[in-house]
Structures are given as C-alpha cells and as structure tokens.
C-alpha cells in the first residue's frame, strides 16, 4: 500500500510547505509529549508571524519557548503560559498577542475543528472575560457561550509509535492534546519514537487513525521533565 506510506526521512520533508504567518497546532502538555524535533525544525526554518495553538508555550530554553526566543510567534492560543519569562516580556511589550482559552474549551475546539463542527456551546467561561462578545444561549435554563472550532495549516504531533499508514499510539500522559491536534491540521505531521509495520498496532487500540496523518517522521527525544517530584518514602 505505497499510496498510504506516510513516512518521511528528513525534517525538511516533514515540514515542507510551512510558511510565514501560518497557523500551527501543537500537541503536548507542558514539556510532556511535545514534538521536539519538529519544533527545532521550525526554529531552523526561521518562519515568522506564526499563530501557535498549544496548551502551553514551553519554557525559556525548550519546546515552543525556542520559537518565542527567535520572535517567530505572532500569536499564541493557550490555556496556561506561566513558565516563561520571555513570554511575559513579549506580551508586555506588545510584540506577542495571546488568546487565553480554557483548557477544556481549547481541547474541544481542536476536536471540533477536526470533526467538522464549526462551533459548540459550553458553560465554561460564561460570565467571565472569556465569554465577552460571544453569543449566549440558554439550554434548560442555564446560559452557555458559543465557542468556534480551531483548525491549522499544520498540526505537529508527538506520538509513541506509528505505522507507515500513520496509525498512532501515545504513551501514558504524553497523549494529552496530541490526538486532537492530529485531527485539526490541513497537514498533520507526527514525530514518533518508533515506526512499526502495519498490523503491529492492535486495530481496536489505535489512538489516531492514519486518515488524519499526512507525514510520519522518526524523531529522538530529550524528554525534559519540568517538575520532578519524588515520593517521600522510598518504596
């Protein structure tokens, strides 16, 4: 099935077509489950004016923080951006625009984008700054706000294993936003720890079916830990 072979062998090929002012949706939660090599490649390409949709924006010297450092990001759509001094500077100086979005709404916006749902109602954010200017409608006596979906020119995703058809599985909590991001990119690129042959992944337990995936690249990962906390007593 060569027509379905999504594997590319260089980061240049993985992000071919990425250009200035595009929207990039990135998987990951904090530094967990982030497509490290794809982020590095975006840094290397030097594209500017990006809108980046990601729950967080990395830290100063790792993850999406690298793109902040090089001033490649025009706008962030995130739920929490608190681990980043550069972010603070660029936000206060007006260089960086930020659209803070509740975490669950952000996840649902990505899912909706991939699923052809242009908008949905949620109680989250009603009566808060998040709800300002958004249509309100009552259902069963409770007010809800209308939230629109998100799609991107590119989605960059980190999976554990993928087969050549682009079927992916994620490891532990490195799953997080990755499956939704994968559905919402016009071009979806997945960076993985291991490429397996079709049939090696159990069909009933594939997290991201290959239909969502355009390119798969074998990466290598530092997997930096943001907050290492240990049990007080050893087991």
């Amino acid at each position: 099935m060569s027509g379905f072979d999504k594997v590319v062998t260089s980061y240049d090929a993985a992000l071919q077509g990425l250009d200035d002012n595009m929207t990039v949706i990135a998987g990951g939660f904090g530094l967990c489950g982030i497509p490290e090599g794809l982020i590095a490649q975006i840094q290397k390409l030097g594209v500017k004016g990006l809108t980046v949709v990601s729950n967080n924006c990395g830290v100063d010297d790792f993850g999406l923080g690298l793109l902040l450092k090089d001033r490649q990001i025009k706008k962030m759509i995130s739920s929490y951006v608190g681990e980043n001094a550069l972010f603070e500077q660029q936000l206060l100086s007006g260089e960086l625009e930020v659209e803070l979005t509740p975490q669950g709404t952000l996840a649902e916006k990505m899912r909706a984008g991939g699923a052809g749902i242009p908008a949905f109602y949620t109680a989250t954010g009603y009566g808060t700054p998040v709800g300002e200017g958004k249509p309100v409608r009552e259902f069963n006596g409770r007010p809800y706000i209308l939230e629109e979906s998100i799609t991107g020119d590119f989605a960059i995703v980190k999976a554990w294993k993928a087969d050549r058809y682009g079927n992916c599985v994620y490891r532990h909590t490195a799953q997080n936003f990755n499956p939704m991001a994968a559905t919402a990119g016009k071009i979806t690129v997945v960076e993985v720890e291991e490429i397996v042959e079709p049939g090696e992944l159990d069909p009933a337990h594939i997290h991201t079916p290959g239909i969502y995936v355009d390119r798969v690249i074998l990466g290598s990962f530092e997997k930096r830990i943001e907050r290492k906390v240990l049990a007080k007593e050893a087991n």
Partner: protein
Amino acid sequence: MALTREQIAMRVAQEFKDGSYVNLGIGIPTLAANYVPKGIEVMLQSENGLLGMGRYPSEAEVDADMINAGKETVTAITGASIFNSAESFAMIRGGHVDFTVLGAFEVDVYGNIASWMIPGKLIKGMGGAMDLVAGAKNIIVTMTHADKHGNSKLLAQCTLPLTGVNCITRIITDLAVMEVADGAFHLKERAPGVAVEEIRQKTAGRLIVEGDIPEMIF
C-alpha cells in the same frame, strides 16, 4: 486559632464520600489527598488525562511521560485509565467528577469565583479552572479567610475577573466552613477556638449565622 494549611486540607477531606471521583487543584487542595478518612476511598482525576492518579514516583519510577496537571512526575494506581485532553474535559464538563477542590483570590455571595488573574500583574492563564468550576457537581473552595493585609476574600461582589459565575456552594477557610446560597454566606462550622465575631469581622459579604455554630472536629 486559624487552621494551618494541613488542617484546612484535613477538613476538606472530610467532605469526600466513598467512591467519589475528585479533582484537586494545586496547593492546599492537593494536600487533601493525604487526609482522606479511613473507610473512604476516592479516585483522583488529573485533567491532563489521568483517572486514578497515584503517589509521587520513586527515583526508579520517574517517567517523563507520566505527569499530573501540575506538571509534576506522578504514578497511576492499579485500575487507572489514561486518555486525551478532550476526553478528560468531557468528564469534567459533563459533570462526571463528583468533587472539585480549588483555591481562589475571591468568592462572593452569588457563588462567583475569581481565581486566575490579577490585572496589572502577569496573566498566566486559567488552565482548566474555568472548565472545572463550570462542570463539577460539588465545588469546594479553599483559601484563607482574609489576605495578609486583613482584607476579606469573601465579598458582596468579586472585584477581580471571574473564573465562573454562580458555581461555588461550599467554602472552607482557615476560620470557617460556609455554604453559599440565596445571596449570602451561611456559617456552618468555625475553626476550633475561633469566635463567630472574628469570622463576621473578616467576611465582607452578607454572612448568615443561624443558631449555635459548632467547632470543626478533626
């Protein structure tokens, strides 16, 4: 005497019912996991996609792919499940989590809560807090009754940008346990040795005190 952080957490843990699913915010709420009463079992939900969060790992167990919503390394209990963020917030938004415990800057008599932003200071973002207060069946706010300058955090109306409206029903502070209903705080319990008068003084919003107010029991 005002309660310590640990004592607030202990009192919070008394709220949990056996077999409940609980989401604990960062800080005092997280401590509550250490004080779950004997005979009561709860399962912890972490909004980054883990139901059945366990203890912190040993050095050998540390795994970069296994973290909680506070981005700390963590473990899973036997029988846990792990899922994506959309599924995690489907649980939260859909009202499947029984208890949410979180901190706040301010709460008011309408059950409004402000907990995520202080204008002029840095905006870090609301994370999952807005989803949690919009979705959970029972929300418990933990905080000190007043700030370090003595200003009440229990107001007639919140002054900071809100996290959610009409959603808080129970507040546990270093001084008291209160319910929020009908446009007032209803005093239910006081910290051992704390007089009703002190609570009244430190509560800016309307406080209703009916009958004898018992001391908390630990």
